């Protein structure tokens, strides 16, 4: 089977590569385009470490065929910072000690950013729902929830 050319808008920049037959988007992003921010955790859609956005919606990139993302906008944790300027969520994760080993963090950030983009004032229950597909072994989740709440509260100030 032949490789297929795949073009995505990755974090705002058009990027092209060749997808192997059956290659998933996670592998295409990491090996094809060199974006190592989405992580391989379980490879079967249960851990959330590979979470990315496709046209603004969160997806588990290990379960998406690379060619299915052709022509679409893909967002990863690597696109959150603007140069040295971190996304407020990244700052809040640091201030709230929301990462230990850090393996879940890129997926958590993508899920949290997608939530805040569609719902700038989420309740705690909505935050919990938004990250319920992202497993974390170290933090006990509470610091992550607190970090997302901190950004949400910042936005509600006049």
């Amino acid at each position, binding site marked *: 089977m032949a490789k297929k050319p795949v073009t995505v808008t990755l974090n705002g920049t058009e990027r092209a590569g060749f997808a192997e037959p059956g290659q998933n988007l996670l592998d295409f992003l990491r090996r094809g385009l060199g974006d190592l921010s989405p992580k391989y955790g*379980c490879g*079967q859609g*249960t*851990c959330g470490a590979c979470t990315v956005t496709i046209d603004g919606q969160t997806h588990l990139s290990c379960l998406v065929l690379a060619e299915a993302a052709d022509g679409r906008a893909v967002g990863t944790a690597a696109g959150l910072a603007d140069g040295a300027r971190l996304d407020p969520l990244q700052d809040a994760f640091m201030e709230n*000690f929301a*990462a*230990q*080993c*850090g393996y879940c963090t890129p997926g958590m950030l993508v899920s949290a950013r997608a939530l805040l983009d569609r719902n700038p004032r989420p309740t705690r*229950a909505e*935050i*919990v*729902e938004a*990250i*319920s597909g992202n*497993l974390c*072994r*170290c*933090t*006990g*989740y*509470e*610091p*992550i*929830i607190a970090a997302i709440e901190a950004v949400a509260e910042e936005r509600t100030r006049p």
Partner: protein
Amino acid sequence: MAVHRGRGFAAINYPIGMNLGGDPSQALVHSNPDGKFTVALSAIDLGQGMKSVTRQIAAETLGIPIDDVYVDTADSDTGPHDMGSFASRGTHRMGNAVIMAAQEARSVMLEAAAEELEVDPGDLVTDGRGNIHVRGAPSRSITTMAAAQAAQFKQGRTIAGRGIFLIPLSEVDPETGEMTPVSTFAHAAMLVEVEVDDETGEVAVTDMQSAYEVGRALNPGLVEQQLRGGAWMGMSHAAWETTEPYYPARDHGPVDFNHYLMPGPGDLAPHHISVLERPAEDGPYGGKGPGEMCANPVLPAVVNAVYDAVGVRIDELPVTPEKVLRGIRANGGARPRQAL
């Protein structure tokens, strides 16, 4: 059919590090020509803060800004030998080794500075901001960078230090069995509240109150982070996780995250943490190490709370709904202890 509330308590003593003697950790500290210092270790930072804490300890001992310390660790090909990051030993063992190495490096740094200032090294102090000066005479001063460069390029002196932590083998008295197996204990107490559904057997932890005595909290933010995350893991071990649910039979073991149960962000209980600081005599700046003990008290506390709620004494973890229901049936119904 009802939901029963119960309360359980547990207290633990937790030995820091491997004991019975030995348990070595080594550290090497040296200055670079830019006046900054490198700490070489083989201890692993798994996210628990090993690099942050050893960096703090090295900066404090050397008397230089923390920005001027770089911790190079986790390459066992190039770093000095270490037993590893386990047994809650990191802060205590590696911290002590880093102090020993940094003290030696500091003394050479002060000798180099003394030669430049033409004073006795014993009269020199550091200000922690990158300067070395004569005690009581801050104007007679040299930067740590200038001292490091003088040592490197002029004096031919190596600003470096070696450190090791090693406890002697504890002999066992053949008559009494008495020995000293442990150099340092940390302590914790925990109170949990649970709700047990006597129809489904499900146990929900609804509140956690804990107190941990970890010596001096060298980095309070990291200590709390470990305690909070570790308590979650303890809750998970108490009522959710197992690789072999019918041990020793291997049946029905989970093979992936679909089957390996863990509490998610919607299953959290409020957790109030108190950290009691009682600096340890043999700890680096009084520190011990939260480590594994942050998960430990949760398990017995949850088991005790289940007993309090429905009168079922579970002696094999985790506390699954099946075990709770079998226990309730064997007792002829839920028997809340508080009603007795």
